[in-house]
């Protein structure tokens, strides 16, 4: 019996540790690298009031799209809120939004994982996402009642930039191509996308993998994310162990 074995068949127990109201970051861009099995399990566990950090919500039927459709998302943090059901909840005061440029989102996640407290970027400077005019919450009649905080600015090297803080999350859902029991992960092509960053930013990183391999099967240079960032590994639905 090895000391470290992050793999489990019991997806229910893994997902059970995520409480209502948790902050959860989800990897994936489109269906590429989207952890569908874990998102489904979370819906089946009937979790609600979630803060979801992901590039989009509702671009796909499953994943974050299902979470939104089932009304489980209290707050969305990301770049593309395109689920009509989420929009409706937003415009009737039942959900909130923090809209982020895509690159700022992933850099804030990386910063959280890398022990960087905050950073300056020119992205979003002099826009409504930085000047305190973008509504984060509406009342039941669709009137804005709260706004995203204005971002501090500073000129660096002659260029105006905004201050962006590290984005820490409680949990992350990650989709890998291959994983071993140490949690070493290998991704594949454009399915890598946000997956390393969400894992790094999370207190608890939960991975689903297409393939479960022996320790040593992934060459040292092919480990795209070392196991110390990973807490649990399950198999994607339909994948054979």
């Amino acid at each position, binding site marked *: 019996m090895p000391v470290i074995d992050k793999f489990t068949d019991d997806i229910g127990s893994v997902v059970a540790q995520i409480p209502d109201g948790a902050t959860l970051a989800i990897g994936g861009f489109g*269906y*590429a690298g989207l952890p569908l099995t874990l998102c489904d399990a979370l819906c089946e566990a009937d979790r609600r009031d979630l803060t979801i950090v992901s590039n989009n919500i509702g671009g796909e039927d499953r994943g974050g799209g299902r979470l939104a459709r089932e009304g489980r998302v209290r707050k969305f943090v990301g770049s593309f*809120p*395109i689920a009509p059901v989420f929009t409706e909840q937003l415009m009737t005061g039942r959900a909130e939004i923090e809209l982020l*440029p895509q690159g700022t989102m*992933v850099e804030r996640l990386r910063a959280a994982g890398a022990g960087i407290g905050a950073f300056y970027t020119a992205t979003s400077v002099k826009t409504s996402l930085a000047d305190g005019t973008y509504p984060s919450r509406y009342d039941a009649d669709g009137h804005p009642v709260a706004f995203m905080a204005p971002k501090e600015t500073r000129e660096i090297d002659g260029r105006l930039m905004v201050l962006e803080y590290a984005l820490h999350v409680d949990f992350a859902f990650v989709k890998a191509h291959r994983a071993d029991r140490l949690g070493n992960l290998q991704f594949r092509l454009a399915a890598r*996308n946000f997956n*390393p960053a969400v894992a790094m930013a999370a207190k608890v990183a939960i991975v689903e993998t297409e393939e479960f391999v022996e320790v040593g099967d992934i060459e040292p240079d092919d480990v795209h994310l070392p196991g110390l960032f990973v807490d649990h590994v399950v198999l994607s639905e339909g994948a054979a162990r």
Partner: protein
Amino acid sequence: MSPAIGGEAAGLLAADGAGWSREGVAERARRDLRSGSFVNLGIGIPQLVADFVEPEAEIYIHSENGIIGAGPGAAEGEEDADIVDAGKRHITLVLGASTFDSALSFAIMRGGHLDYSLLGGMEVACNGDLANWAAPGRTPGVGGAMDLVQGAKEVWVLLLHRGKGGESKMRVRCELPLTGAGVTTRVYTDLGVFEPAGAAFRVIERAPGVTRALLEEATEAPLEWPEPDA
């Protein structure tokens, strides 16, 4: 990312056949791309540019979701679930392509490593301001638009000169929420090629059949004509 968001607004093509089609705008912009360059093609007319890039030119296309060397769409039945572009279409990779995570992908944009970022536009102003992400009555989504206007060596906006109602998208000041302030280095429309010059658009080229009068009527912002222009 939905193609309906973060790109261009619907527009009006010149009725009398003057000027370029959408494809013509893309083709005209492509002529100015240096061979061997690295370019990101945003949603809208910029996506059409790929069709005019012959492989021998070795123009490598960056896709924000983590690709350099994005190729044509995948043939039916040959889609790879792990190869999609920024529009989430199943595409192919060209020889010499590389794939990486989103943190590096946006480092490439913000860090100034792309030669060109081509974007659609809803409005563009002669001070270089660009608005292309939030139109009235739509759920706002920003995607990578605000990142794409920061850092690339050249930021070109490709759009139709006028909206459906004939209103000019070439403005003194953008009325829609900005994507970036002062970021645009060149503008390609169905009526010509322009450079933001502060208080006016400098006319670089008129599209075939486009008169000076038509351009002035179609452009809200002042125009600055090159010396020898009639």
